[in-house]
């Protein structure tokens, strides 16, 4: 069934059709519509879930971990300051190996107060041991959440599914709501590999000395190494059942491109339009969307960037005292290719619009080898 819905409601529908059993959430702009819709799903009996209306995001994450440890499928959604408040429990979820899924509406961190999009909230959670998806459109949001549950439950690693504030959260698009029976086939009821059970009592998370802790973290990374294969398989299965194709990255007119844009989130759509217009003007431009940020798709980035004349990485984020965060990752992926010029452009922090003309201008700068490492595109000085 096709329905015109916002990104926020795509999240709510995804939580419902993924048959989340426990939702614990706290309202924050611009995520509020997500929890409002889930509340009405629960009230109408459309969703058989317990919705714990917690008093903070920290508790939201804790309650999801608890529900997952009890053997249920748990979900929450948040944004910005809320995700930052969860930080401690994000580590806890990953280290406890509870496969919960969180949708995060990318919103800039205060102060000053901002409700508009950028990626510093989610990228600050880079090292918490989660799988990270960055979505481009509302269909992507819905499908990513369903896929994320399957991947997470397979490898016992939680997933963060990220979408841009307002550009997606409050923008309506036609979204195909998949048939529940097909979703149930794709994502059967959660069977936990381990769970709290009085009939089989175990202690989880007890004090662990240097002689054992190290191996537990090694095991987490070992499972992260499985994620890419699992994801590729999940994408294939998803395509067969629902007809939509997904990858860890998405190339657009990338193969024959001379200049390649590396982008994420909604900027990816704008970049596609810029690519089309640039091609009409005679510039061989292409783009590569990074959909999965953790585990970082080093293999695919290498594959698509190889042999290009120049790369322009556009970051809607910044690591202060460092550099654009996707740029760091891309550079790291291309370490073996020292002659490839990789340029860094920062754009759109705090929800500043990044239009086709901006991306075309960035592409031309990259073509001419112009970059201030980084260039803060459009900054008003």
């Amino acid at each position: 069934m096709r329905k015109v819905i916002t990104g926020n409601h795509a999240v709510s529908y995804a939580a419902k059709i993924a048959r989340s059993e426990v939702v614990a959430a706290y309202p924050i702009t611009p995520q509020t519509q997500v929890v409002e819709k889930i509340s009405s799903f629960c009230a109408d009996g459309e969703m058989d879930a317990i919705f714990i209306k917690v008093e903070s995001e920290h508790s939201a994450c804790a309650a999801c971990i608890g529900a997952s440890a009890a053997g249920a499928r748990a979900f929450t959604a948040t944004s910005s300051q809320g995700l930052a408040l969860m930080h401690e429990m994000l580590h806890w979820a990953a280290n406890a190996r509870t496969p919960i899924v969180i949708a995060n509406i990318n919103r800039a961190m205060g102060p000053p107060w901002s409700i508009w999009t950028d990626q510093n909230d989610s990228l600050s959670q880079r090292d918490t041991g989660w799988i990270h998806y960055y979505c481009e459109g509302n269909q992507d949001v819905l499908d990513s959440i369903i896929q994320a549950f399957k991947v997470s439950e397979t490898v016992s690693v939680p997933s963060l599914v990220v979408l841009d504030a307002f550009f997606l959260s409050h923008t309506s698009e036609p979204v195909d709501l998949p048939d529940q029976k097909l979703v149930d086939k794709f994502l059967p009821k959660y069977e936990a590999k381990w769970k709290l059970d009085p009939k089989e009592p175990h202690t989880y998370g007890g004090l662990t000395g240097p002689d054992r802790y190290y191996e537990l973290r090694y095991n987490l990374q070992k499972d992260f190494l499985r994620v890419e294969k699992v994801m590729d398989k999940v994408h294939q299965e998803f395509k067969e059942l629902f007809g939509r194709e997904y990858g860890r990255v998405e190339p657009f007119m990338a193969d024959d491109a001379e200049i390649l844009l590396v982008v994420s989130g909604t900027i990816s759509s704008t970049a596609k339009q810029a690519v089309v217009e640039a091609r009409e003007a005679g510039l061989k431009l292409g783009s590569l969307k990074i959909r999965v940020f953790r585990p970082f798709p080093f293999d695919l980035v290498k594959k698509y960037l190889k042999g290009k004349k120049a790369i322009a990485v556009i970051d809607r984020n910044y690591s202060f005292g460092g550099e654009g965060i996707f740029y760091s990752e891309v550079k790291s992926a291309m370490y073996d290719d020292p002659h490839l010029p990789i340029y860094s452009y920062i754009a759109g922090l705090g929800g500043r619009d990044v239009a086709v003309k901006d991306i075309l201008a960035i592409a031309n700068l990259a073509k001419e080898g112009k970059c201030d490492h980084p260039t803060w595109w459009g900054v008003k000085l």
Partner: protein
Amino acid sequence: MKTTIPKEELIYSGHLACQGCGATLAMRYTLKALGKNTVYTIPACCWSVIDGPFPYTSLQIPLFHTAFETAASMASGIQAGFAIRGKGDINVVAWAGDGGTVDIGIQALSGVVERGDNVLYICYDNEAYMNTGIQRSGSTPVGAWTTTTPPPHFKKVPKKDMVAIMVAHHIPYTATGNIAYPEDWIKKVNKAKEIVGPKYLQILASCPPGWKHSSEISIEVVRLATSTRKWPLYEVEHGKYNFTRTTKKFVPVSEFLKLQGRFRHLTEEEIDVIQLLVEEHWADLCAKAGIENQFADKLEEYTEKVKKNHPKWFHIEED
């Protein structure tokens, strides 16, 4: 002698507690009442160590360790996870120290109780951050030395009255306990177990290294907390107060204080202030329980005494 204490032990003999540890007895008695169909979540506190290092455990029920401020919300999530899978009959217990309860965890606890989640929250109260080496908490009593309240900067504000805070949340059931009165405690845990909704219990648990007394008098010390009425035993069911133990005999609070090094620095005037606080709390509880205060004369006596002569740090309205 026949007691009502169940014989079943759900705690193994091996654990990492200090000698004379009250928190360990608290756990032992509580599990006897709860039985095997129980799951615990424990935040950072003495019990995150007492249970034993991985891969050992001293408990015969499942235990999920959690972050400091999340005992209540974690329990709420675990309970929901069980309930949605038709296992809502499992006792879900948040077991936390006083710091994790009255300080860093109070927000999550308040949320759970306000929402009416079906969780049993138990605070074993040893009146300071004992696991990290005796730092003051919101539950440290007036006059106490801790490593962060060294005399003359000993604690000069009263401990938080968590039971009153819970009553203000309209909690269905809340009660105090004392490890020196296990039968009273087990009755309360049994009662809490039968109630669907949030339950809050707080059990006073002596801590020889933190209270500075020798381990063999642990029970004697903590019993005096109740016989001096410093830690009264009572319960509040749907707002109705009921003493589960009362006394006619006046035992001065100094009897409790003098056994412990943490109160060694106190002057007579300062001990009088503590006695006054005992009388005020007792009078308040009697009024709430609707019983006559047999120690009304003591309240009067110590009010006058403290008015006449009190340390500078204590405020009292003068005549």
